[in-house]
Each structure stands twice: as structure tokens, then as C-alpha cells.
């Protein structure tokens, strides 16, 4: 699937120096919320999500001119957002010299520190369960559960086979179920 007509027009405008900023702003406005929530679910904290968002869109600014239109723009944007989120979490790991479990623990702590956090509400419990998942499974679950992304597109975002993604999602759901039922 190639880019949509709207995106095609925006890309065309972006390649013209006179309309570049205008087209870029339109792209940001169009995709910012989706990407924000994808990033926020992964890094939990708003300030961290904002930092990652800025990095993502700066990369988009620098790379959009060379974007090949044989892929959907949003697939490309999600790939950048996923990679930037993972990079951010790895930096967090290196900085604190802690293991993945501790990072997950750190993310859970950030969740519990949220002013609206309520451990008795299922939606918060679900968020706690998601933070226990390994990074890749977390991304797969979020993309499928929240963003309702088809496996075909997800395969392009994460550069993983559809079969592997289905299996990953299956495992993730089972782990979440287990967490909710047993904690």
C-alpha cells in the first residue's frame, strides 16, 4: 500500500522549499496525537514522551525529503516513533545501569506516581500489566490493542514477520490476563 492522496500532496508541498514548513506543520498536526499516545504508553511519563516526540519529528524533518512513497507515511512515522522510544528506554537503562526488570519497575513506579492513578480500576491495572511485558511485546500489544494496526502494517513498522507478530501478541495478552487475574 502506498501513501494516501492527502499524504502525497503534503509530501509534494514539503519538497517545495516555499511550502515546506507549511506542509511539515500539517503532517505534524495530522499525526501528532497518534504518535504521542504510542510513545506515551511506552515511556509513561509526559515529559519523556514530549522529548521523544521532538526527536521523532526532528528526524522526520531531516528524512522526509528522501522518504520513498512506496510505503505509507504513517507506517514510516510509527517506525521512527517505536525506534526512538526503544532508544530512549535503552538510554534510561544505561544511565541507571539497571536491568530490564528494573526499568519495567521504574515505569511502574512512574505509573503509580501519576496523580490519577487508582490501583482498583481495571484500566490502571491493565497499564501495570503492560509495563511488565518485554519491550517488543509491549509495542506489539499497544499497536494492536490501542492503535488497531493490521499485522501487515505492523510487520512494516517493526520489520518482523506477521506470524511472529501474531504469536507475540498472543503471548502478551496471556501475560496480561495472568497479571490481572493473579494480582
Amino acid at each position, binding site marked *: 500500500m502506498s501513501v494516501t492522496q492527502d499524504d502525497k500532496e503534503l509530501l509534494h508541498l514539503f519538497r517545495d522549499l516555499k511550502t515546506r*514548513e507549511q506542509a*511539515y*506543520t500539517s503532517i*505534524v*498536526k495530522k499525526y*501528532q*496525537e497518534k504518535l*504521542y*499516545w504510542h510513545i*506515551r*504508553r511506552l515511556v*509513561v511519563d*509526559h515529559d519523556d514522551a*514530549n522529548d521523544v*516526540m*521532538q526527536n521523532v*519529528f*526532528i528526524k522526520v*524533518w531531516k528524512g522526509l525529503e528522501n522518504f520513498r512513497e512506496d510505503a505509507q507515511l504513517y507506517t514510516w512515522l510509527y517506525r521512527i516513533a517505536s525506534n526512538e522510544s526503544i532508544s530512549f528506554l535503552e538510554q534510561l537503562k544505561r544511565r541507571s545501569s539497571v536491568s530490564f526488570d528494573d526499568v519495567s519497575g521504574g515505569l511502574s513506579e512512574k505509573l503509580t506516581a*501519576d496523580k*490519577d492513578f487508582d490501583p482498583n*480500576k*481495571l*484500566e*490502571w491495572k*491493565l*497499564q501495570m500489566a503492560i509495563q511488565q511485558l518485554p519491550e517488543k511485546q509491549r509495542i506489539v500489544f499497544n499497536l*494492536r*490493542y*490501542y492503535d*488497531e494496526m493490521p499485522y501487515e502494517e505492523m510487520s512494516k513498522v517493526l520489520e518482523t514477520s506477521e506470524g511472529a507478530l501474531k504469536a507475540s*501478541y*498472543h503471548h502478551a*495478552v*496471556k501475560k*496480561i*490476563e495472568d497479571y*490481572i*487475574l493473579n494480582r
Partner: protein
Amino acid sequence: MPVENHILNELNTISQTVANIPRLPVFTVPENYFVEFPGKLMEKIREDAKIETELLSPLLGGIQKKNPFSVPDGYFSTFEEQLKKSTLPVVMPEPAKVIRMSGTRQVWKLSVAAMVAGVIGIAAWLFYQQNTAIDLPAQVNINAELPKVSEQEMNDFLLSVPEMPATETPQVAGLENLNIEDMLKDVQDGELQDFVKDMPELQPEKLN
């Protein structure tokens, strides 16, 4: 948030517990975050570009991005109109009308052409004839005609022709009776020896 059926069905087959969890937003964002984000992002991109330039060349980074050039008043407001004028299609002049000549006119045309050709032909023939007449005497057989000329006519002819140039031989020039010894008797010995020196072919060894 409506969920796509096939995704909900898939989730139901894996875990009904998870499928039944209400999809309520748990995270919040600061007010106007999405309204302000694009503008702030653009500011950051410009700032980053400025810092990059300053790092590459502090001198260039310190120069204000002020346009030093100016354009005539109203240039941009009238530009489109000027462009239209200069790109208007060029009106080509209509091609000249071709008038077909009538039959009478054609006969006249052919007659005039024939007359001109005739005049040129006759003139050329006359010119050729005249040149041929001038060359006629050259073609007369002199041996056959010479006996017909009388002696008087011949004498008159010889008297009218200027004297023929003589051939440059000692006999013709009247030098055959001159003695070399007489000619050289006034020449000094020294002059003669100098002459011999100047003429290598007269050296004694060459003469032997």
C-alpha cells in the same frame, strides 16, 4: 472508543478477561499540548539549525539572516500580470492569399516567357557569328595566298613593319674581328691578378 470487530474477536479468542477491560484513557496531557506542539517543534528545528550553523562557522552563525537585496515597489503584486504578458502566445501574421491565375493570364505569361527566351537566343547567335568573322584571316592558307601578292605590295609591307631585333651573337654584334690582347693592353697587371683571384675557376691548378 469503537473497536474493529476482527480485532475484538481476536482478543476474545485469546482472553475474554482482557477483552472485557473498558478502554478508558488513563493518561492525561497538559492543556493545549497538541495545539502548541507544532509551533514549538518548528521553533526547535530553527534553533537547532542555528546552533548547527554556529558550530560549523561562528562567523556565519553570528550574521543576521537579513536580506540585503531590495526590489522595486509593487514588484511582487504586479509580477503575475507581467508574467502573463510576457508569456502571451505570439500572434502570427496571416499567410498571403494565393490567387489562382486564369487561363488567359497563363497564355500571356507563356507568350512573354517564349519571347524573352527567343530574344536571348538570337542575341547569343549573333554574338557568336561576329566573333567567328573576326577570326577568319587566321584560318587563311598563307602558302596558297603568298604567290598572289605582288612584289610592290611586299616591299610596301616590309617598309611599313619596324626593323626586326638582331640576335645577340658576336657576329651580329660586330665583335668577331676584335683582338683580346688589344682589348687588355690598357689593363694593369695588378688588376688582372686581382680578377684571377676573384675567379676560382681561373686558378692555375683548376686550369691544369
